[in-house]
């Protein structure tokens, strides 16, 4: 398979809107934020709050924007969701807060809660010298957090504010988890993930050790022995396979690995993409990879999903976005075999919830195939923990089956695998750990 040079020239030409790294939804201007914030009705016991996995007091923060109290707005958001900046950018608000906005009922257009959230938090994260949160008196307790992703950092931050000392162990070179490595740059433009990490760590009391991987130089047993509590926010470490012939060919790659390469590329040197790219899958990662491949210069990008649009994990908004960006969506087709420059599919049908092949096949040209058919827990280093349904088993207070060990984020089954859910898991687990340590 041959890869083509990306459209790096557009970057150097300074046309940011055409850059493959451009922000799809740019920050609001102050005038936009003022107009939009005034659309909020300040509902009582607002439906949007209930729809937010982290329970942000949305009407309160929007009112603060309207009154010019931007710091107050940001503090309201970040006190419930320390990654409010990322969530304002990447949350599928169309199925969460904005779906429940009462403005939908009479006007069919919700308040742009996500964009307002970004507006409020950007200023605080970038501009305010003083961290809005202070730490409680030191408790003398030490907590180990495994994984510097949304769950781990959220947990670490909450524990630190409660007075505990936290050491975060992170396998990769940078903190942020999927915020840094797994979200397409059109959603997470520039170095925001790292700026947000710096802001979170700014509260103090948190040490991050990079290159420390559970199962390598780190064991759950030693963490339990050396710390008062352990939180696992290890995410889903490995990708599902298609299990078809040709999967090992060059040019076939996990979509998460592709996005990671795109995100970690040096400025002005985005990775090469195929001319004809086929993405397999129907979730957010598939959409991210397809759009990003298109933005990097792929001539044709086809996203193929074995079920229908209604069954896709990606929201309707994301599906439409992909189409607007020039991605072709093909549904009811399952990959059968990957050739040198082709990929063969069998058409499928869904009856009574059961998917079956029809026997009819077709072939697409493909010099790059990106697989996005889900991720799963890497359970190797989790000896002694009960794993149920592919996720670490926890009780209602995020406690695992091992004493002194809590877990949250994508590695547990609390809700959808979303940043916002991971932040909530980390926060609630921290509160549970705090109760345990101070009991």
């Amino acid at each position, binding site marked *: 398979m041959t890869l083509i040079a990306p459209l790096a020239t557009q970057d150097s030409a300074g046309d940011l809107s055409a850059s493959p790294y451009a922000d799809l939804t740019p920050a609001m201007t102050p005038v936009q934020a003022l107009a939009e914030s005034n659309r909020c009705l300040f509902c009582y*016991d607002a439906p949007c709050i209930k729809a937010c996995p982290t329970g942000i007091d949305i009407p309160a923060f929007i009112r603060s924007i*309207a009154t010019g109290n931007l710091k107050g707005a940001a503090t309201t958001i970040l006190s419930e969701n320390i990654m409010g900046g990322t969530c304002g950018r990447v949350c599928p608000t169309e199925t969460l807060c904005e779906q429940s906005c009462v403005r939908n009922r009479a006007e069919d257009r919700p308040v742009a809660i996500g964009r307002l959230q970004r507006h409020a938090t950007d200023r605080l994260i970038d501009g305010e010298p003083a961290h809005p949160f202070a730490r409680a008196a030191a408790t003398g307790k030490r907590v180990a957090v495994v994984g510097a992703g949304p769950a781990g950092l959220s947990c670490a931050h909450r524990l630190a504010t409660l007075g505990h000392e936290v050491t975060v162990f992170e396998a990769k070179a940078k903190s942020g988890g999927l915020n840094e490595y797994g979200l397409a740059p059109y959603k997470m433009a520039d170095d925001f993930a790292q700026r947000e990490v710096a802001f979170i760590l700014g509260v103090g009391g948190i040490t991050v050790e990079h290159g420390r991987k559970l199962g390598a130089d780190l064991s759950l047993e030693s963490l339990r022995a050396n710390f008062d509590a352990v939180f696992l926010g290890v995410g889903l470490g490995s990708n599902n396979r298609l299990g078809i012939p040709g999967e090992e060919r060059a040019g076939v790659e996990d979509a998460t690995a592709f996005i990671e390469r795109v995100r970690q590329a040096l400025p002005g040197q985005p990775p090469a993409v195929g001319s004809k790219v086929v993405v397999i899958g129907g979730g957010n990662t598939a959409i991210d990879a397809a759009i990003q491949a298109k933005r990097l210069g792929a001539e044709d990008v086809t996203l193929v999903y074995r079920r229908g649009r209604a069954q896709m994990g990606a929201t309707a908004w994301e599906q439409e976005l992909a189409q607007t960006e020039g991605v072709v969506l093909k549904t009811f087709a399952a990959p059968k075999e990957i050739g040198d420059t082709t990929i063969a599919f069998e058409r499928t049908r869904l009856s009574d919830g059961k998917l079956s092949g029809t026997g009819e096949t077709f072939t697409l040209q493909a010099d790059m195939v990106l697989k996005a058919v889900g991720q799963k827990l890497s359970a190797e280093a989790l000896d002694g923990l009960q794993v149920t349904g592919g996720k670490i088993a926890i009780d209602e207070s995020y406690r695992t089956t091992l004493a002194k060990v809590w877990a949250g984020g994508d590695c547990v089954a609390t809700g959808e695998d979303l940043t916002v859910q991971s932040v909530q898991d980390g926060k609630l687990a921290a509160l549970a750990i705090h109760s345990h340590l101070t009991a």
Partner: protein
Amino acid sequence: MADLRSTIAGIRSPNPFWLASAPPTDKAYNVVRAFKAGWGGVVWKTLGEDPPVVNVSSRYGAHLDTDRRMIGFNNIELISDRPLAVNLQEIIEVKRDWPDRAMVVSLMATMTETAWAGLARRIAETGAADGLELNLGCPHGMCERGMGSAIGQVPEMVEQVTRWVKNAVNLPVIVKLTPNITNILWSAEAAKRGGADAVSLINTVNSIVAVDLDAMAPTPVVDGKGSHGGYCGPAVKPIALNMVAEIARNPDTSGLPVSGIGGITTWRDAAEFLALGATNVQVCTAAMTYGFKIVEDMIGGLSNWMDEKGYRTIDELSGRAVRNVVNWNDLNMNFSTKALIDPALCIDCGRCHIVCEDTSHQAIRIDQGDGRRVFTVVNEECVGCNLCSHVCPVPDCITMVPEQTDLPYVTWPNDARNPMRVPEAAAE
């Protein structure tokens, strides 16, 4: 189609919408633009004796909602700062070119007959003025020189000035009243005694419109300091409506024509002033907020609404609500109205509930419906205060429904619950 032609104190205009004496009527350029836009008349910005006043820089302040909509507006600008002869010449030229529009000229002078009569004669001699409006109201600047509200706040002086001017010229005289008094009737009655052909009200309300929290000074800030100014715009409309109604329902002034002023922004505002007894209306802030074009919808909206309601002329509409303005003691104590929430229109914001719960009578219940909340008025607790219907963001979602009752109309003086009630037997 309704006939919008208007006559007040003998002054005719093709519609009842005049521009009030203010910056928009300061010179020919603006007034010609206003007439082209369709305004029925103007009251030319107040003229004084030469030498003209000198204005400061930084003159207007604003009371804005969070979305920057103009709630209220204030100014510390003085009267016309151009030479009298220049203004009079322009008035002549504009009236010559626009003979069908009302040209009323505002004037202000110190408390001497010579000053008032002299100025009035100068204006009358132009032959271009359809009438005069006496500015006895500006609450800033000019009052510190013994003019404006310094005169308007003293009923005897109002009467005296009106008489001086009426004696000096043979023109209709409208006396513009200040709201910065305890009882508008004292000024209105004084104007009538002095021979006023009409009154106009309200002039601006004395105000500090906002404080610049960086400069720590009232706005508008003039080199670090600010002064109280004249407040106007939508926020003063209720104050003006009440004062207009007071004059209209007061036996001593009920025949006195009123030119209504105060926050009129839409045709509906105008209709309300007319209903409370005004014969025409004057507008300033709305024009200063949106430009002169707003008069188109004022004219069109009023005309359409009058057609819909069957009012053929302004006279048929004027004063229609006056008989229903009564003292509290004349209200029916047996009347009862209850809020009714239409679940089909409800958007689930919950504001009716929380304002009733927090600040009123705990009369709106929440039930969990199918995927949304259902809000229901508890009639036993509802006192019919209207609060929920006012805060509801959806028009007509919450309506107030009077209860059917056989009880007689009983006012508080006759109500059995009134401990001060004079028993009927004893009263006979």
